[in-house]
Structures are given as structure tokens and as C-alpha cells.
């Protein structure tokens, strides 16, 4: 990748006029008619106790999209994701799942529609891979509906998808960081939700494992899952996203395809990072190359 650092800015920079400028929200009014939103925030005031993260955020996740949320630290990315997962109730405004106020949908029903891979999870001491993944089936079980063949198939499929079939009986504490993250992903997959929310899924992983996971998410997206991921790496975001949501200070400042949104102006303004944007030599998606400062 270093070889391309000296390339001149690519024609892609011309799109700058189409992407919205920072400070202005976009793609909410017009989109409703044309897009089927799986998840949506409408003027949602998101806050923890007395700390407000977003005053009134608007955001949409299209059915079947691979939506990536990017933004500087503490801009409210994870908070928005939590609101989408029904873990945080908006003070005012609304968060909608398939057009319904998400807070009014029973928790277990949400859990059968929206899966979440949180930033941190804890595994009980001594639990094996298969046991942990099996706990992802909880939303499908009831007091009287216990473990069934469907559960077993879902767990087996999740293990196969994440390449863990050979490790089912291994205690999770004995795995490497990359394997462990795959176990958590497998647990979310076992939940078999049409929507998957991923909160910084690649943090703490080495670069090869990062791309392994992203490829897995792209595969799931190809099979019809709506994927929403918070990512830090803009080039990964540009490569995998169909839709990009850029946030700053609790607001959505730009939305659209990576090519529309990811411009030199935007990266400079939002991330305070002077850069050139060139086409990724492998995929052609926009690639952000920082300038010397």
C-alpha cells in the first residue's frame, strides 16, 4: 500500500460536491419513499444519565445494506448502535425497527431480529466454544421450549461459518485473541438474526484476522444479512460498505456510498486529518492517504 502514497489525487475527488458538508444531516427526508429502512433513528436524543451524546440524531439502515458507521472517537457511533440494539432508550425522538418504535417491541422479539456483537463480553471460566456459541440461541428458547434440533443446526452452521468446527470442545480461555473474537461472532450468528450490529469487531486483532472477519461479514451480507458495523479504519470502511454513515459530535454529518461520501474535504474536516483520496488499487474504492503534517 505504501507504493501508492505518492500518487496524485484521483478523479474521485470531484464527488466532493455531492457529499453533504459537515454539520448538515442528509438522506432522511427523501430516502423514506425509495428505501426500506430496517433500522432508523428520527431526531433521537441519546444520553447516559446526565451526559448527552446525541441531541437529535437521524440515521437510516437500508434493508440488505452493509452499513458502516465511522467518525472520530466519542462521536456517538457505539451509542447509536446501542440504540439500534434497543439497549439504550432515546430520551426523545424515536428509534424504529421495521417502522415500529423499537422500545415497544418485546426484547426477545428484537433479539430474534437484531443481533449485536458488543465491544466487550465476558466468558464464564471453563466454558467451551460449543457451549458459548449455544448461548446465542437464548432468544429462540422459552421457559418450555428448550434445546431443539433447530438450535443444534444453527449452532453447527455458525461454527462452520466461523471455521471453529475443530475447536468445539476447547475452553474459550485457551484460544488466541483472533479465535476468541470468532467465537463471539459465532454466538451472534447462532442467534440467526436478519440484522447484525457489530461494534468495532476488528479492534485488537492483527491485520490478517481483521480482513478474515470483514470477509466473513461481507459473505453474510452477500447471503442477505443486513450488516451494520462501527469501524475505525476508513479504508476498510470504504472497501466493505455499501452505505457509509459519518458521525461527528453526536450528529450524522454525511451519508451515502463510500465514493460519494469519502472526500478529502470531509476527512480533513471531520477527522482533522489532511489527506489525499485515491482509488484503492485492488478494489477501486476510495482510499484515504494522510498527508505529511
Amino acid at each position, binding site marked *: 500500500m505504501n507504493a501508492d502514497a505518492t500518487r496524485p489525487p484521483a478523479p474521485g475527488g470531484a464527488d466532493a460536491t455531492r457529499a453533504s458538508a459537515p454539520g448538515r444531516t442528509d438522506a432522511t427526508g427523501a430516502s423514506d419513499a425509495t428505501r426500506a429502512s430496517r433500522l432508523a433513528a428520527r431526531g433521537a436524543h441519546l444520553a447516559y*444519565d446526565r451526559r448527552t451524546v446525541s441531541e437529535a440524531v437521524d440515521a437510516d439502515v437500508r434493508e440488505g445494506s452493509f452499513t458502516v458507521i465511522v467518525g472520530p472517537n466519542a462521536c456517538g457511533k457505539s451509542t447509536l448502535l*446501542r440504540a439500534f*440494539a*434497543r*439497549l439504550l432508550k432515546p430520551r426523545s425522538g424515536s428509534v424504529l425497527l421495521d417502522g415500529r418504535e423499537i422500545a415497544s417491541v*418485546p*426484547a*426477545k*422479539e*428484537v*433479539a*430474534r431480529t*437484531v*443481533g*449485536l456483537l*458488543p465491544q*466487550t*463480553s*465476558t*466468558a*464464564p*471460566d*471453563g*466454558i*467451551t466454544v*460449543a*457451549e*458459548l456459541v*449455544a*448461548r*446465542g440461541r*437464548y*432468544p429462540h*428458547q422459552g*421457559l418450555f421450549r428448550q434445546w431443539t434440533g433447530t438450535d443444534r443446526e444453527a449452532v453447527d452452521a455458525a461454527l462452520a461459518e466461523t471455521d471453529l468446527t475443530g475447536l*468445539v*470442545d476447547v475452553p474459550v480461555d485457551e484460544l488466541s485473541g483472533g479465535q476468541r473474537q470468532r467465537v463471539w461472532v459465532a*454466538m451472534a450468528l447462532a*442467534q440467526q438474526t436478519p440484522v447484525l450490529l457489530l461494534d468495532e469487531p476488528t479492534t485488537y486483532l492483527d491485520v490478517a484476522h481483521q480482513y478474515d472477519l470483514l470477509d466473513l461479514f461481507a459473505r453474510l451480507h452477500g447471503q442477505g444479512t443486513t450488516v451494520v458495523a462501527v469501524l475505525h479504519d476508513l479504508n476498510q470502511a470504504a472497501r466493505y460498505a455499501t452505505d457509509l454513515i459519518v458521525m461527528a459530535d453526536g450528529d450524522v454529518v454525511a451519508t451515502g456510498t463510500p465514493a460519494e461520501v469519502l472526500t478529502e474535504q470531509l476527512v480533513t474536516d471531520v477527522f482533522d486529518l489532511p489527506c489525499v483520496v485515491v482509488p484503492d488499487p485492488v478494489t477501486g474504492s476510495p482510499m484515504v492517504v494522510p498527508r505529511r503534517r
Partner: protein
Amino acid sequence: MTRTGGRRRTATLALVVVAVVVAIVALGIGDYPLSPAQVVRALFGGDGFASTIVLNWRLPRVLAALVFGAALGVSGAIFQSLTRNPLGSPDVIGFSTGAYTGAIVVIVTGAASSLGTAVGALAGGLVTALVVYVLAYRRGVHGLRLIIVGIGVTALLHSVNSWLLLRAQNEVALTASFWGAGSLALVGWQQLVPALVLLAVLTPLVMGLSRPLRQLELGDYTARSHGLRAEPTRLALVVVVVALTAVVTASTGPIAFVALAAPQLARRLVRSAGVPLVAGGLVGGVLLLVADLVAQHVAADPVPVGLVTLVIGGVYLITLLVSESRRSA
């Protein structure tokens, strides 16, 4: 499921066998010794003197040890899982000390029937739990804060208990102290049956809450993203733990350390994921039964079983602290 699941079932089954064998041996030991064969015959419809001894004299105490030990083991297992800490046991964080306070208050004010004492203990345990829960509450209750607040409240209650005993008349203080040592000696069918009924009511609650408890072990965000209501579930589990502990304490007086040690022993024996409820209960039952045998037959004069568990538990706690500090060093 899988190999590990099978091995755990075998280990749990082995614990059941151990519990039955120890119980049969315990029923045979005493001034009138009986062989295991005689005990089994007496249990299943034999008549005569052996039957009277086994069914009327020894069985209530052995059954009480098994069932109360199991209740303590299960309550400890739930609490250690909730707090994610091997020290998170209802007796360490003050529930049984609070029950003792309740019992002393009843005894000192002169209403010292066994029912009165039991009610006092129950109320004392529940109030203590409520106080600890409220003091530890800050946008939900978390493990370590609950333990530290509980230890503080326990210390406070100990001084309250001493003060109450010092002010009381001698014979009243003696009754209260005897109760406070924790003993199965006075448990007959009359005391046992109501306790068994209460525990039987609690059992389905424990079973219903066991799977939500497993989800809570994954962290609140994950548990909630699986559709669990984390805080109400936690509160329900705390209530069940307090109820289990209070029923036992009300019947016997405070019995220390079974709730603390049994779940961790069980975890090592069964090699389970997290703290096992069923195995914790089985180990608790066996532990209390063996401790009660020691209390009755090893010393020249019988001592309260609470003293024996205190000694065993003290050794266990020191071992635990030493190994924890080694691990963190």
C-alpha cells in the same frame, strides 16, 4: 451435548451416589450402630426398634443436613455467578449475620418460640439484603461493590449483635448464643417439614432462573442483546438467594462457609462452565452432612455443626485468598 457435557453429567451423577452413600452411613452411626443393610431395610418399611431410630431420630437430622446444605450450596453458586467472584457468598456479605440479628432481637424481647426465632431470622436476613442491595445500587448492582458493601454491613451487624447480647440477661444471651452457633441438633420433623415445603416452593424458581443466570454471565450488553431484562432478573435472583439462605438460617442458626466453599469445590470437581448450580447443591449437601457427623461424633462432646463448618471454611478461605493472591502476583 459433546464430550465435556457427557463428562459433567457423569461427575454430577457420581456426586449423587456419594450423597446417598454418605447419608446411609450417617443413618447407621450412633450409640446404636446399624449396618448399611439394616439402614436400608429400616428405610423401606422395616419395623421395630431400628426403624424407629432411623426414621424418627436420625433421618430428620440427616435429611436436614443434606437439604439445607444443598440450599446453601445453590444459593452460593447463584451469588458467585452473579457477582463473578468466588467470595460472593450470602454469608460473607451479611445475609446470615442479619438473620442472626433478627433472631437475637426476637429472643431478647422474650418471644423465643422456635417459630418466633425463625420469623425473626427471616425478617433479619431480608432486611439486611435490602439494605445491602440499596447501598450497593448505582444504575444496577455490580459484583465487587455488592461484596464490599456486604462485608461492611456484616461488620456493622456483628457489633450490633455483640451489643444486644451484652445487654441481655445471662440465660437469654446463652439461648441466643447457642442459636447463633448454628446447629442441626434440635431439628426434628416438626421443624423440618415447613422448611422443606418452603424450599420445594423455591426450587422451580431456581430452575426457571438458571438459564437467565447463564446469560448474565456473558455481560450485561450481551445478555440484554439476547432479549434478557438484566436488572429485574438480577433482583429476582438476589431475592431467591436470600430466601434460600433465610429458610436455612431460620431453622438452624447461621451455618458459615457452606455457601462459600461448596460451589467452588463443585466447579473443580465437575469442571463446569461457570459456577454449577446442581453440583454446587450436591456438594453443599455432602459437605454439611459430613461436617455434622464430625460435629456429633469426633469431639468428646457433640459441638454445633456451625463451629465445624467455620473451621473447615476458615481453612478453605485462607487457601482461596493465598491462591488468588499468588495468581495476581
